[in-house]
């Protein structure tokens, strides 16, 4: 039996908000990492994957719960932590070798030992000959190799990777992924386990031997799936495709916990989308009466789950589509919407938004009752900031502006920051 390196018990993370309320990002997370495990954490964007990773690596302190490292208190143990960032996080003014050495030197490793270890890691990630180059001379893929070498150089037990390949182009990312899988499989990495955050399902299935799937708002663990396919995995094998499909199903299943369903006690969360994109998705989905497989739709479009998810959520929220077992199917209204012309579309959208979207409804109501049919954005921000962070409150309002404008329910004046209802004035004849 392999030893357990890291245990997390009842982790929660909440951020204080105005008026004493709290925004809970993570709720009651329990997990353990054994030696020799490659774990991936999956979930929709904004689910708190990165927050969880940072808590597990000791960078952020959880609001409650505790983390044990080989059975001892994590903070007291002060273990070495390797961290690979999406943004690479290299020092632009240090050369490749200086970047790789930086962690060793910070911990007081003698110069010659540090140099030797750094060179070894640079060899391992295939950057031979680039020791004296500066990061800005390197391509994105090579920069991330430096990032990985730096994390490995301090020889940590645990390597944390935060969407390490998502800032790279598809081919480069594929290449790096295969190399990571090979190095891991050949046990060439000076580490015991990897914890890997991604929103790319195929990536998780390709690399890890256990996938942890998070729900969101707030995040808790929806499912843990063991992946026993031997390395190096073939993406075209039936086994692989089935697993990918399974995870899609879990991620898209409209269970109570996920935000497709309106929750009474929580303010409705609007997915970050524009009306145009929702309409586009509905067009695609209507091609098949029986419903369209989401994973197929995603790969057909050449998009990531992250891009398509908000659209599906938004269509479901609006009551224009339903999601069942990894398939998206249009509702009656949705079908009508996708078939009509621009003006009719607006009418249907208006009706559905007024019926289903809390914020749009609220803005419209308040405006109808307002004296001169004008209300400052501050009013709605005030309400929203009781439920969301400042930044998210803005996002929510912007989405409502986009949707409300499309439905011609209300307008928004950017300069004064006011919402208003346009008077029904006859269209003026343009003088030619």
């Amino acid at each position, binding site marked *: 039996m392999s030893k357990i390196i890291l245990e997390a018990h009842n982790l929660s993370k909440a951020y204080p908000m105005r008026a004493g309320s709290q925004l809970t990002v993570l709720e009651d997370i329990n997990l353990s990492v054994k030696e020799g495990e490659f774990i991936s954490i999956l979930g929709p964007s904004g689910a708190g994957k990165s927050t969880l990773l940072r808590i597990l690596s000791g*960078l952020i302190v959880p609001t409650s719960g505790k983390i044990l490292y080989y059975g001892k208190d994590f903070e007291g143990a002060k273990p070495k*932590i390797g961290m690979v960032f999406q943004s690479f*996080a290299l020092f632009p003014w240090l050369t490749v070798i200086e970047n790789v050495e930086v962690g060793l030197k910070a911990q*007081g490793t003698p110069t010659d030992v540090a140099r030797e270890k750094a060179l070894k890691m640079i060899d391992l990630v295939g950057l031979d000959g680039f020791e004296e180059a500066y990061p*800005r001379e390197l391509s994105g893929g090579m920069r991330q190799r430096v990032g990985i070498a730096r994390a490995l150089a301090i020889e940590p037990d645990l390597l944390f990777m935060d969407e390490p390949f998502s800032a790279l182009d598809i081919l480069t990312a594929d290449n790096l992924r295969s190399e990571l899988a090979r190095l891991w499989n050949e046990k060439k990495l000076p580490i015991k386990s990897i914890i890997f955050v991604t929103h790319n399902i195929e990536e998780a299935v390709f690399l890890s031997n256990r996938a942890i799937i998070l729900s969101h708002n707030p995040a808790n663990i929806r499912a843990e799936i063991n992946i026993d396919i031997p390395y190096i995995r073939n993406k075209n094998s039936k086994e692989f495709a089935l697993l990918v499909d399974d995870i899609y199903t879990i991620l898209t299943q409209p269970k109570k916990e996920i935000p497709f369903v309106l929750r009474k006690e929580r303010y409705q969360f609007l997915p970050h989308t524009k009306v145009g994109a929702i309409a586009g998705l509905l067009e695609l989905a209507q091609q098949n009466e029986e419903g369209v497989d989401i994973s197929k739709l995603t790969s057909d479009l050449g998009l990531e789950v992250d891009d398509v998810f908000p659209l599906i959520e938004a269509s479901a929220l609006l009551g224009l589509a339903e999601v069942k077992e990894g398939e998206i199917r249009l509702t009656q209204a949705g079908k009508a919407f996708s078939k009509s012309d621009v003006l009719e579309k607006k009418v249907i959208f208006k009706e559905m938004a007024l019926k289903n979207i809390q914020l749009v409804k609220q803005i419209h109501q308040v405006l109808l009752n307002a004296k001169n049919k004008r209300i400052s954005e501050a009013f709605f921000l005030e309400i929203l900031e009781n439920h969301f962070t400042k930044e998210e409150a803005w996002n929510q309002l912007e989405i409502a502006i986009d949707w409300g404008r499309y439905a011609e329910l209300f307008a928004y004046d950017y300069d004064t920051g006011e919402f208003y209802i346009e008077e029904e004035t006859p269209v003026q004849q343009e003088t030619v």
Partner: protein
Amino acid sequence: MKLQKSFPAIKGFSLPDIIVMLMFLSVIGIIFFLGSQWKGDLSSVANISLDYKYLPLYVIQSISRIAIAYFLSLIFSIIYGYITKRNKVTEVVMISLLDILQSIPVLSFLPGVLLAMISLFPNKRIGVELASIILIFTGQVWNMAFSYYHSVSTVPRDIIEVAKANHFSKFYKFLRIDLPFSSIGLVWNSMMSVAGGWFFLMACEMFAVKGKDFRLPGIGSYIQLAANQGEMQKVTLGLIVMVVIILILDFLIWRPLVVWSQKFRVDNIQSEDDKESLVLNLFMTSNIIDRLSRKFDQLIDKLNLIMLRFEKRTEQITTKKHRSSIIYLLLLATLCVMFFEGTKNAINLILKLNRDDVLMLLKAGVLSLLRTLAAILIASLWTIPLGVTIGLKPRVAKILQPIIQVTASVPATALFPVIIFFLIKLGGGLNFGSVFLMLLGTQWYILFNVIAGATAIPQDLKDMAKLYNLEGWKKWKVLILPSIFPYLITGLITATGGAWNATIVSEYVVFGGEVKKTLGLGSLISEASATGNYSILLASTLLMAIIVISLNRLIWKRLFSLSEEKFRVE
């Protein structure tokens, strides 16, 4: 093979080595010279000779004062940054304190600082020297402190996490993260600060407090003395020497520093037109510098080891926390007592003012406000059209930019004697003349920013304007003014601040042994400082600070955030 490449073999001495060594030698020589000068008695202070042969010695002393004040500013800025970043409370307090301090004109600090220094070193020249250095320091430090704080607060989160994951010691984080990230901003602000040092040099080298004259040998006092004695030839000579020195310093220090600091750019894009500096290239090829920097790196690693051990030890004895909290309490109590005593004293001083004084103060406030506004307006009237014309034509910009830069680097205060000479000949008083003097010091901020703004207008928008035949006023309204707006605001903010500071030297001028003045807050401060009228000094300083801060908060900050939101071209 690889290892050899990074540790080049050192063979003999090259020409750069010899030059570098000579430079070190001269620095040591200057330090000894200063030491011998400063040890002297106060009585020798007033003897400033207008003989040419003393000029080099004066120049060295002036540069040393500015340099010492500058390094003090640098150290202060870094420490201030750390205290500010300590926690949320200190952040709020320290930042607003900084805002207030930077709105207080240099001369207001003079009497207090000078008296303190003289009582510390009775009858010794070092007292006056230190007072002068502290004065220059107060003119240099604030924008550097702001810049450092700003850079440290905007270090990307990922980089901070790298430091955390690798258990960087505080010392290592400072050297490897904070300092590199702030270097570009610090270099630019250092240039501005030192330029400010030259601007106020005359006021800082030759001053009267409580009717007593204090003079320190330096290029600033040389020019002023020559002007007082009506020796225009020597004024001109002093001026030329000063400008040449500024240009040499720019070539030897600032240009290399600016180019070198480009290394610390955060964006990962390879810049097309990497700037060059002859001096920097010289340094880079010098073996000695190479060896020294390697030694320096090793020293950092050694120091880091010590710091690591130290931090571990302090961590183990965190249980003894209550001892440090007692020290904190004592510190806080002392601060409270000082605060209380200071406020009491200040209120007493202000209460001594009678009604006439208050009326005069208010009138002076209005007059100075009008003058600064007039200066800014006149400056905008000519700099905006010129700046836009230059900025829209890259070829013209390439030719004119260096010329303007040289012109702008002349400290306007040094020109004052010449200008006053003509103003008096023309028969104009200082009432309007002072506006002109302020203009000299502040117009450049607007011009440079407008040029930068016009250069940054995207080609697409310019093409669009051409396609739609946008001409004349329409083109200004639709394209040019909105595009340069953020830059213009930045320039105006800096220029207004500069104009207020310049009221002190432009509303009250000593020329030909005579005092020329016109009513205004600046002249009140200068006069009160010279005659030792602390009530007026304090009240006028306070009033000026209030006006400057309210203008900043009520007008400029709002315009600035508007420009950030609406008119940013990306």
